[in-house]
C-alpha cells in the first residue's frame, strides 16, 4: 500500500524527534541542578535549594519522558532497520552497549536518590548523586553522538564481505566529525535549557511571583545564554567547515548552491526547485558563501550538481538550516538585550518577560532543525559511503508500520501537550507556595535578602493558608 521505506523513515523520524526533545533538556539541566546544589552546599542559603526543588521536578518529568521514549528506539533498530545492525553491528553494537552500561544504569539508579533522597542521605551524598546523574546524561550523549558521528564520517574500519569490522577503536570514537558534533550538541542543550529556565522564571515573575528564586534562576539563565549563544555560532561555524571537508554535498544543500562556482553568493532566502535546479525568489549576498566557507571572497565552493545521485534532497536541508541559524541569532539578540537590562536596571520590562515566555521552548525548534540538517543532509546514505538507507529497511508489512505510526504520533501529540501545560502549571503552583519551613536548621534568613518575600507572604497569608507549607509531592 504505502512505500515501506518512506513509512519507516517517517516513523523513525517521529520517534527520534520526540525522544531527542527530552535528553536535550536533561543533559544541561542536570548540570544546572548540580550548580544549584553546590551553591547551596557552599552558602547554605535556602534560595538555592528552592531553585533546586522547583527545577528537579521539571527534571524528573523530562527524564521520565526521555526514558520511556528511548526504550522505543532500542526496539526499532532491529524491527525497522535490520540492515543497519547486519552491516555495521560490529561497531554500533559496542557503542550502544557501552551507552547502556556506563550511562543508563548510572543515571536511572542515582535519580532515585537525587529526587527523593535529600532527607535520607547526607547532603554530600545527595550532591554526589546529582553530579552522577548529570555525568550519566552527558556520557549517554557522548556514546550516542560517537555513533551518529561515525555514521556521518566513518573511520577506523574495514569492509569484509559487505560487513563492517572495527580496526581502530580510537579512530572510531574520535572520528573526524565527532568533536564538533558533540560540542555543538552540548551547547545546543545548554541554550535550550537557558531559554527554558528563563522562560518559566519570566512566567513566574510576570504572574507576580516576587520570591527570590525565580529572579536568581532568570539571571543565571540569561547571563549563561548571553555567553553561550555567540560561542555556539562560533562552534557551529567550525562544525560547518568540518562538514565541508567531509560531506561537501551536505553543505551545498545547506547553502542552496546548485552550481560549483568561485565567489559563491550567500542565499539568505529562496525556494529551491529540484526540477530546474535553481532557487526561486532568491535574496543573495554576493560572494559571501565563498568567504564564510573558504575565507576568500573568490574561493571555489562545490555545488549540488557535482554529486549526482549522491546528494540529499535540497529543500528540507536548506529550510531547516535557515530556521536553526535564524533562531541562533535571535537568541543572541534577546540574551544580550535582557542581560543589558538586568545589569543596568536589575529587572526586566514586561515586553522582555513576554518575549522570554514566548521563547521558552525555542531551543527545541533550533535543535530539531539542526538535527534535520545533519540527518537529512546525510541521505541517501544511512552510513556515509557504506550503507544506503534504502538497503537497510525492513520487510514488515507496511500496514503494520502505518498502524503503529498512527498510534505513536497520537500518543506523542497528547504527551507533548500535557508536558508543556504541566510545566507552566508547576510554575503557577510555585507562585502560590510559601517556603519558610525550608530554612535549614540554624540558619536565619536575613531581612535584606527576603524582605520582598515576607511582604508577599504577609499579604498572601489570608488566602493561601490552606496550601500546605511544603509542597509534598510523590514522584
Amino acid at each position: 500500500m504505502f512505500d515501506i521505506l518512506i513509512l519507516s523513515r517517517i516513523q523513525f523520524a517521529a520517534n527520534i524527534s520526540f525522544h531527542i526533545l527530552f535528553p536535550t533538556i536533561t543533559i544541561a539541566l542536570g548540570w544546572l541542578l548540580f550548580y544549584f546544589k553546590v551553591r547551596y552546599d557552599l552558602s547554605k542559603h535556602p534560595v538555592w535549594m528552592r531553585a533546586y526543588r522547583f527545577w528537579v521536578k521539571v527534571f524528573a518529568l523530562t527524564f521520565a519522558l526521555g526514558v520511556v521514549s528511548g526504550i522505543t528506539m532500542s526496539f526499532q533498530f532491529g524491527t525497522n532497520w535490520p540492515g543497519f545492525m547486519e552491516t555495521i553491528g560490529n561497531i554500533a553494537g559496542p557503542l550502544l552497549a557501552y551507552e547502556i552500561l556506563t550511562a543508563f544504569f548510572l543515571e536511572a539508579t542515582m535519580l532515585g536518590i537525587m529526587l527523593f533522597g535529600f532527607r535520607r542521605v547526607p547532603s554530600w551524598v545527595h550532591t554526589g548523586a546529582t553530579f552522577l546523574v548529570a555525568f550519566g546524561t552527558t556520557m549517554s550523549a557522548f556514546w550516542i553522538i560517537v555513533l551518529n558521528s561515525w555514521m556521518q564520517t566513518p573511520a577506523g574500519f574495514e569492509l569484509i564481505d559487505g560487513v563492517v569490522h572495527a580496526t581502530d577503536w580510537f579512530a572510531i570514537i574520535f572520528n573526524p566529525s565527532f568533536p564538533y558534533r558533540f560540542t555543538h550538541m552540548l551547547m545546543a542543550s545548554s541554550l535550550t535549557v537557558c531559554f527554558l529556565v528563563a522562560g518559566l522564571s519570566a512566567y513566574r515573575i510576570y504572574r507576580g511571583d516576587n520570591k527570590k528564586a525565580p529572579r536568581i534562576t532568570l539571571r543565571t539563565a540569561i547571563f549563561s545564554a548571553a555567553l553561550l549563544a555567540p560561542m555556539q555560532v562560533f562552534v557551529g561555524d567550525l562544525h560547518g567547515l568540518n562538514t565541508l571537508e567531509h560531506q561537501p554535498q551536505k553543505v551545498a544543500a545547506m547553502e542552496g548552491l546548485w552550481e560549483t562556482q568561485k565567489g559563491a553568493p550567500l542565499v539568505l532566502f529562496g525556494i529551491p526547485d529540484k526540477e530546474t535546479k535553481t532557487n526561486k525568489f532568491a535574496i543573495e549576498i554576493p560572494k559571501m558563501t565563498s568567504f564564510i566557507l573558504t575565507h576568500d571572497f573568490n574561493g571555489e565552493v562545490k555545488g549540488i550538481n557535482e554529486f549526482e545521485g549522491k546528494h540529499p534532497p535540497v529543500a528540507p536541508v536548506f529550510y531547516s538550516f535557515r530556521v536553526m541559524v535564524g533562531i541562533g541569532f535571535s537568541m543572541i539578540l534577546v540574551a544580550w538585550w535582557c542581560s543589558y537590562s538586568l545589569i543596568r536596571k536589575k529587572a526586566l520590562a514586561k515586553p522582555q518577560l513576554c518575549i522570554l515566555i514566548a521563547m521558552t521552548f525555542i531551543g527545541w525548534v533550533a535543535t530539531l532543525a539542526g538535527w534535520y540538517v545533519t540527518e537529512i543532509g546525510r541521505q541517501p546514505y544511512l552510513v556515509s559511503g557504506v550503507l544506503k538507507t534504502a538497503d537497510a529497511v525492513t520487510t514488515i508489512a507496511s500496514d503494520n508500520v502505518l498502524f503503529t505510526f498512527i498510534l505513536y504520533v497520537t500518543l506523542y501529540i497528547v504527551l507533548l501537550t500535557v508536558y508543556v501545560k504541566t510545566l507552566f502549571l508547576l510554575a503557577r503552583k510555585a507562585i502560590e507556595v510559601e517556603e519558610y519551613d525550608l530554612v535549614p536548621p540554624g540558619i536565619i534568613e536575613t531581612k535584606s535578602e527576603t524582605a520582598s518575600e515576607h511582604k508577599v507572604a504577609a499579604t498572601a497569608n489570608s488566602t493561601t493558608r490552606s496550601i500546605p507549607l511544603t509542597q509534598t509531592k510523590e514522584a
Partner: protein
Amino acid sequence: MDFMFSAQGLPIVFGVLISISILLYAILDGYDLGVGILLPMDNAEQRDVAISSIGPFWDANETWLVLAVGLLLVAFPAAHSAILKALYLPATLMLIGLILRGVAFDFRAKVKQTRKIVWDYTFKIGSYVTAFMQGFMLGLYVMGLEYNVYSILFATFSGFCVVAAYSLIGSTWLIMKTTEDFQKRAIGWAKRAGVLSALGILTVSLINPLVNQSVLKIWTQLPWAYLYAAIPLLCFFMFILGYLVLSRLPLADDHGASLPFYMVVIVFVCCFLGLSFSFYPYVVPGELTLFEAASAPESLRIILVGSLFVLPFIGGYTVISYYTFRGKAEKLRYY
C-alpha cells in the same frame, strides 16, 4: 576465562548475560508493574503509598529491559530482528503501555488534583497492558513465533499468566513495604494471585513439552531429567510454603513480612531456568541457535570487557539505592 573470550564461549556468555538481564527485569520491573496492576482505585491514600513504594526504583528497573533488548541487538542482531519483527505489533503495544505508565507516574503528582485520577487510571491500565503484552510475546515465543488460532489462544493465556505473576510479586512487595490495613489487603491479593500463578505455571509447563517435541526430549532425557525435575518441585514447594506463610501474616513486629517476596523471587528463578533449559541452544526457537546468530567475536569481546568492568559498579549503586530507601514506604518528597 579463556573460554569466555573464545569464539565458542562468547555466544554462551552473552546468552547467559541476556538471560540474567531478562530475569532481573522480570523480577524488578515485575514488582513495580504488579503494584501498578493492583493499584487500588477505591483508596487515594493507598494509591499514594503504593506508588511511593516504587518511586525511587522504577527507572532503574526498566533499564534492565533496555539492557536485555540492547544486548540481544548487539550480540545476536539476526535474532533481535527475527524475534521482534515477528512480535512487532505486541511489542509496540507493550511499548505504548510502558510509555503511558512511565509518564503517568510523573504526571499524577504534578497535574491539577482533579486530573490526578485520570493519570492513576492511565498508570494502572498501562501497567496491565505492558504485563499482558510481555506474557503474550512469551507465549508466541514458546509457540515458535507463529501466528495461528492455537498459538494466539496460548499467547493470550500466557498474557494473563504474566499479569497474575506480576500481581503476585507486586503484592508481596507491598506486604514488605506497607503496614496495617493496606498490608492486610496486600496479603489477600497475594493469596489470590498466588493461586492463579500456580495454576498458570502448571498449565504452561504441561503445554510447552506437548507442543514442542524438542522440549519434551530435553525434560525426559536421563540422567538430566532427575536434575531438571528439581526445578518444578522447588517451584511448587515455594507456592505451598508461601501460602502457609501468607495465612499466618501479619505477625507481631512485622516479622516475616519480606519472606513472601523472596519466595516469589525463587519461583521466578525456577520458571526462568525451566524456560531457558527448554530452548537452549536456540535463540529463535527451532530456527536459529546462539552460535549462528552471534556477532563478530572481536566486537563481543569489547562489550564483554566493558560489561565485566561495569556490572560490579551497577550492582554497587543499585545496592546503595535500595539501602537508602529501605524500610516501609513513606510519602515521597522531592526535597
